[in-house]
């Protein structure tokens, strides 16, 4: 008998991958590729095409919730550091994630840059690198610089993978990841336009699984999910439509997303922003594929608190996101101890206030376990909007 895919069953597949800190899909890939190498990276942005073209498996390490006890990492980091830096370090120190050959940090914050040195001191078998993405994003010199920096990291990758990467292999990888981005955009379109057909938690799990499995398999997973969604029934509920802002690096616990979706439709967000950083296809035909990736990072990309780009003022970008999603309110969240996220909250709040858009400010930590206070805040917020004129 042929089993019929349902959205629920596919989401459960994704959940088993996302909630297991040992990265089971990566282990299966290693069984099939005994000589294969694994490149981990923080999820904010890394051009995974470079690793994929070298035959490596890129994995997004986005920290972990309470299923991972922090036993060793705390002794290596200062007290006032975000949770994701601790849990990523613990994953490796505890031996839970013992399959990494290389790890790439973005220069998005000082914790990330320091973490690279901490990893390099402690894990001599892991090539720990900082990919220096440009902070002067609007400079005409940024694309040539980033092209050179991508070439440098590619040389590191080639050394770890003991291979040479051709332009042809890069173009094929770009096409695979273009397909992945298209599928995720489609998933987000459904969530935005018909949030009663796809909940925020479901969309989140389906998206986040990309970082925990080979991308070819994730494309198939999303194709199945999108097909199953075509036949899914659902009725709109009387919920307010919100944009969630603040999940660009450390991820909120699933239960937090669940608490919010009980009272609101999350019609857009910045969860796992690295998967959607590039907002349209990268066109590498007839051009240098590395330069095409560099150009896409800078010129066809989303925004976040960890990139200053005068062409993309963050408040304006958020207001645009709200408009395009048809949202009526915003949840401005930030991970605890996340300096860039916390600093952004004030600017976002002022812009939303001036635009007359209601917003709720909150903090989260991936290891939060009790949500009663948050539930009360979100429900009160939602009800204050639903019954504004009552």
């Amino acid at each position, binding site marked *: 008998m042929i089993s019929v895919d349902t959205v629920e069953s596919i989401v459960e597949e994704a959940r088993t991958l996302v909630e297991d800190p040992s990265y089971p899909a990566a282990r299966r890939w290693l069984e099939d590729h005994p000589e294969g190498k694994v490149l981990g990276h923080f999820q904010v942005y890394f051009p995974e095409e470079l690793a994929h073209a070298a035959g490596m498996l890129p994995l997004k390490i986005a920290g972990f919730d309470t299923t991972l006890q922090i036993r060793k990492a705390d*002794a*290596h*980091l*200062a*007290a*006032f*550091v975000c949770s994701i*830096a601790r849990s990523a370090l613990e994953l490796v120190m505890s031996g839970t994630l013992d399959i990494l050959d290389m790890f790439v940090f973005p*220069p*998005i*914050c*000082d*914790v990330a*840059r*320091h*973490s*690279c*040195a*901490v990893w*390099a*001191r402690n894990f001599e078998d*892991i*090539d*720990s*690198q*900082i990919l*220096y993405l*440009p*902070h*002067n994003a609007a*400079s*005409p*010199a*940024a694309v*040539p*610089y980033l092209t*050179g*920096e991508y*070439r*440098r990291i590619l040389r590191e990758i080639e050394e770890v993978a003991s291979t040479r990467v051709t332009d042809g292999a890069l173009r094929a990888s770009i096409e695979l990841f273009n397909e992945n981005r298209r599928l995720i955009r489609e998933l987000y379109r459904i969530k935005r336009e018909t949030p009663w057909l796809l909940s925020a938690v479901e969309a989140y799990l389906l998206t986040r699984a990309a970082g925990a499995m080979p991308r070819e398999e994730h494309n198939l997973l999303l194709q199945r999910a999108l097909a199953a969604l075509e036949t899914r029934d659902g009725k709109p509920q009387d919920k307010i439509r919100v944009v969630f802002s603040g999940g660009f690096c450390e991820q909120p616990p699933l239960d937090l997303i669940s608490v919010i979706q009980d009272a609101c439709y999350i019609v857009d967000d910045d969860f796992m922003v690295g998967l959607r950083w590039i907002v349209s296809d990268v066109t590498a035909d007839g051009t240098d594929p590395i330069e095409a990736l560099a150009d896409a990072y800078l010129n066809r990309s989303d925004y976040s*608190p*960890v990139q*200053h780009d*005068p062409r993309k003022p*963050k*408040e304006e970008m958020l207001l645009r996101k709200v408009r395009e999603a048809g949202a009526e309110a915003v949840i401005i969240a*930030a991970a*605890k*101890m996340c*300096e*860039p996220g*916390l*600093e*952004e*909250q*004030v*600017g976002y*709040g002022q812009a939303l206030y001036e635009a007359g858009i209601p917003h709720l*400010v909150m*903090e989260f930590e991936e290891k939060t376990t009790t949500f009663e206070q948050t539930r009360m805040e979100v429900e009160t917020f939602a009800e204050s909007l639903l019954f504004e004129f009552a």
Partner: protein
Amino acid sequence: MTTPTKHERRIVIRPPLSLAGTTRDENRKLIREWWAELDAAGEEGRPVANVFVMGSMAEILRTFDMPIAFPEMTSLQTAVRGRSLEFITTAEDAGYSPDICGYVKADIGVHLQGGDHPMGHLPEPSLVVATNLCNTYIKWAEIWERMYDCPVFVFDIPGWRGSGFETKRGSGTFRDDVRYVEAQVRELIALTEEVTGKKFDIDRFRENLAQVNELSRLFREVLELNQHRPAPFNALTEGINLMGIVNAYRGSPKGTRFLEIAKAEFAERAARGVGAVPDERFRLLLVGTACYSNFRDFAGLFEDWQGVFPHSDYMSFAGGALDRGVHYDLDRPIESMAEQMVLTTQEAMGGMFWGQDWLTEVVREWSIDGIVFHGVKSCRTVSTGLPDEREWLLRRRDIPGLFIQSDLVDPRLWSAAQLKNRIDAFFESLESRRAAGARR
């Protein structure tokens, strides 16, 4: 404990030092002048640049006679004067989190209160230059951008890249980095021309570069004087005065003259065997920053044990890499500035993240007994990896270290008893170590 307390130490009567106090007097004069210039610029509506100590680009801005405000310094001053908390809470009342940089909040609090600072009036910036050397610089700059609608130039200097990275002059990565930085030097010059309405004068620029070459040479000589035992100055306390001037007057003959005065005074102390801390017993290296809201108490916790800090990594990273040796080639000023920026930044910032080799070198050359790692909540740039670095140096190089935590400017994070317990225990362990060494 056999160590004499500060009340029990022997009193040695020496002939007075002829240069005693000259550095402090000059420092006070120059800081007042610096504030007076900011006040005057604010009153007259002349353009002022807000910059940061790591990568101030003073060499360029001074060419345009632009007064330069350093918010890290002005925030520090609010703390040393015991006023930081009122500004921090003003910023928190406006929505800034208790968990972000206290320097940012102290500064924003001053701006929210109309700019009135305990030492003068903070003018509105006409231009902000923020390097990536501390990521919070960029977020801080964005706050002013929102407040004053002023241009923000993020000057990006690619840094240390990870496992096995070395800055190699001839490498492709070095060339790529320099090309990127050189383009930004030119972009910043063009932007400053626009903001000030003045044309760039390359000869003035050369003069500024020449002053920085001299400043760097003198700065290294001053630091080397502290290899003397006893150390003639305390990098923890008097070091702050040095850092203030070398930043505020980088590229100016006044900065160079100041270091000549400091060098003469410290050399006299060294020649006469006068240490910064009476009867010096322990030589320490500070990694991180001091706690400025409780500055005297912080220093006292070490001085009570006759501990002196002959060096600190603060003297390195907060000095715009002057200690690394800046050598601008005046025949090709713009290109050379870009090269030196890349070289010195990668060395100084690499030293902050991947600090074990530089710290080992300082321990050896400045005869250090132990390292004090002071993590501060306000500054993840300097603090994040300190416990790991401490553990690595102890395990791999047998260099003892102490890790303590408080803050730069937020007195709410000062815990006197806890700090004292840990610091006392560290000194006791250094004493035991010394005794064990003597027995061997």
